[in-house]
């Protein structure tokens, strides 16, 4: 009883005895070795295989269904010795190939192929399975599971499908399985190659030709290095791919993420521009990722595959993507080309020496206009101190920005308020239009200035770096008090002590020759708005003392004392301005809202 193997030669199935199979596979591998470097080698191989199939078929009939050793010998005698085939080659070439041939007679080097006989899609998985000597099921399972990691395996599969050749000829199929089983997996093959190099170094008798010996050794070294580089590239490529796929997911989720959607719709002039930008990203980032993986896999598995059309078309597509990307970038950046500033100056008539600056929260500003998400916005600006947000005004997207307040010295004796509405645009004219689309308001209530935290931009207007910068010109000698609410409104306010905006609030500042000077900050340096009350009872600063005796507050103009004797309030002079002014529940006038006087362009 003899074991038979089923093989497929040129699309015809043969049952062949095992020893005959071994003989035939070696024979084909030898022939393949001869033509591997010849132009059209694959074609010659498949022609020869077709003929062998024909010859074998003649030997088979209804009674004798199995190919025997004798049949293979017959085939060999008809086809001739492989060394007789390469008639066109010169003698030296023949010799070289004989050397290679000796090698391949011993063992058929395993190579990576796609397996056309066992395929679900492209035969990639079963080809890999054959290469790594594992069951196809595991590779397929891994591929399937990796789909859920951002479709990672889908991409890898497509690349493998493209670059791994299909095992077309029977010799390929033998090489795919590497029947001699010298190489069980890729790491073994690493070792083999390294061993090979070592042996050739040691075994100087191998070749009397020193030059060819050196080149063989160098080849071996390059092989090992090439594979290591390949492995490295594959790892890098996978990381890139992961990042790429993740960002693609990010882009596609942008449709449901309001922030990103809002930005894209207010920055790009049209949705077509945005589509082009995404398209360009997919190409410009995707192709290099593909190429890294492609090159890595080729080096790792030593696949000699090059497709000029693939390279050319990928290169051209990349350039195209780059051009589109540049076009979109340039045309979008051009929208920010020109700047325009609309200036609104008003003179304030104040009754007292102290100006109190307060904030009208975003919610209060926006609610009357019917913004749907005004509550959220207030929380947002307070928390993140971010410059821009989006609001829905009657279902229309509207940009909401935070205004900035600066205090400078006035040239005259009067308090001046300058509001700069700034924006950019493709042309001066457009920039000016954009600047005019900004709505901002403040209210004056005697010596109280109540600024809106936010400005709005006419719904439907694109984001063109709209800004509102307020400059309060304060004459010398005037005192300004910042309410704690204006913490985020202050924008780099210069002062003599270089105090940070956030620490300027809750204090009174006097305009002097040198700039704003704090007049109630003494000893407050280490005191933030929240008392650090670890000990629970004892707090002592220059102005406030809390201890067992009671509470003592030393103000500039007044003194408060609470102790066992009762409450004492000392006021050296009866001032009209209370130290901490009362806040009226509702500002009396809203007259300034939206009005712009004294408009001028810069």
């Amino acid at each position, binding site marked *: 009883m003899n074991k038979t193997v089923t093989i497929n030669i040129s699309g015809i199935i043969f049952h062949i005895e095992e020893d005959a199979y071994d003989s035939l596979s070696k024979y084909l591998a030898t022939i393949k070795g001869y033509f591997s470097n010849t132009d059209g080698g694959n074609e010659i191989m498949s022609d020869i295989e077709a003929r062998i*199939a024909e010859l074998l078929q003649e030997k088979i009939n209804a009674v004798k269904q199995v190919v025997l050793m004798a049949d293979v010998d017959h085939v060999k*005698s008809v086809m001739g010795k492989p060394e007789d085939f390469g*008639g066109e080659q010169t003698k030296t070439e023949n010799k070289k190939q004989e050397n290679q041939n000796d090698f391949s007679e011993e063992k058929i080097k395993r190579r990576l192929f796609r397996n056309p006989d066992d395929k679900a899609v492209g035969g990639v998985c079963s080809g890999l399975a054959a290469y790594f000597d594992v069951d196809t099921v595991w590779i397929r399972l891994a591929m399937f599971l990796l789909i859920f990691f951002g479709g990672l395996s889908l991409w890898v599969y497509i690349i493998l499908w493209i670059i791994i050749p299909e095992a077309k000829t029977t010799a390929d199929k033998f090489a795919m399985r590497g029947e001699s089983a010298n190489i069980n997996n890729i790491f073994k093959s690493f070792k083999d190659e390294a061993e090979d190099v070592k042996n050739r170094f040691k075994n100087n008798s191998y070749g009397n030709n020193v030059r060819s010996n050196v080149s063989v050794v160098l080849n071996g070294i390059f092989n090992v290095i090439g594979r290591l580089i390949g492995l490295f590239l594959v790892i890098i490529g996978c990381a890139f791919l992961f990042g790429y796929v993740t960002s693609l997911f990010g882009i596609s989720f942008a449709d449901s993420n309001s922030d990103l959607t809002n930005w894209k719709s207010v920055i790009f002039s049209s949705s077509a521009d945005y589509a082009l930008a995404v398209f360009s990203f997919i190409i410009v980032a995707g192709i290099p990722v593909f190429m890294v993986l492609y090159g890595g896999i080729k080096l790792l598995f030593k696949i000699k595959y090059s497709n000029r059309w693939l390279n050319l078309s990928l290169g051209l597509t990349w350039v195209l993507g780059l051009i589109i990307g540049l076009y979109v970038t340039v045309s979008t950046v051009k929208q920010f080309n020109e700047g325009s500033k609309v200036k609104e100056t008003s003179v304030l008539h104040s009754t007292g020496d102290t100006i109190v600056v307060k904030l009208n929260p975003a919610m209060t500003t926006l609610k009357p206009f019917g913004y749907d998400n005004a509550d959220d916005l207030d929380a947002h600006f307070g928390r993140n101190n971010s410059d821009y947000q989006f609001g829905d005004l009657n279902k229309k997207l509207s940009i909401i920005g935070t205004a900035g307040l600066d205090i400078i010295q006035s040239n005259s004796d009067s308090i001046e308020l300058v509001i700069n509405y700034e924006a950019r645009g493709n042309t001066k004219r457009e920039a000016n239009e954009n600047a005019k689309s900004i709505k901002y308001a403040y209210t004056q209530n005697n010596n109280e200035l109540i600024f809106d935290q936010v400005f709005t931009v006419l719904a439907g207007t694109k984001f063109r770096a709209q800004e509102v910068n307020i400059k309060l010109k304060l004459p010398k000698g005037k005192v300004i008090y910042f309410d704690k609410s204006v913490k985020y409104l202050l924008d780099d306010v210069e002062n003599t002590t270089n105090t940070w905006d956030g620490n300027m609030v809750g204090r009174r500042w006097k305009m002097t020759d040198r700039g704003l000077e704090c007049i109630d900050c003494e000893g407050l340096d280490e005191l933030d708005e929240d008392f650090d009350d670890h000990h629970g009872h004892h707090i002592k600063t220059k102005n406030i003392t809390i201890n067992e005796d009671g509470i003592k507050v030393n103000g500039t103009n007044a003194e408060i004392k609470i102790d066992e004797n009762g409450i004492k309030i000392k006021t050296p002079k009866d001032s009209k301005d209370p130290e901490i002014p009362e806040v009226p529940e509702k500002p009396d006038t809203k007259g300034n809202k939206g009005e712009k006087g004294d408009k001028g362009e810069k």
Partner: protein
Amino acid sequence: MGNSENTDKPDGGVERAATAQAQMRKGVLELCILSILLQGDAYPTEIIDKLKDTKLVVVEGTLYPLLTRLKNTGLLGYRWEESTSGPPRKYYKLTEIGEQYLKELQLSWAELVDAVNKTIEKGKNNI
């Protein structure tokens, strides 16, 4: 050098004759294949059968690389035809360039044969 090589190996003469015959066969093989295809399209096995009659080809394997090379240089074209017994057959045919090339080859072959024959005759007379 050539002389010394001959004298170094006593049995070199026989080996040399065999190589020379093989070289000569290979040289004319191209001409023969093209001539066979001039008579009509054929697939490799048919070509081989005809060549075997003339003892020009001993083993079939020699033919395939040659056919592919001729095809790749544009002298031959081919088409696939289904076969009742076995895989589809590749029918080779002569292209226009191939025909042109064959004519030139025939001409130089005739000249060569003529020249060779004359030389051989002279040599015979001398013996």
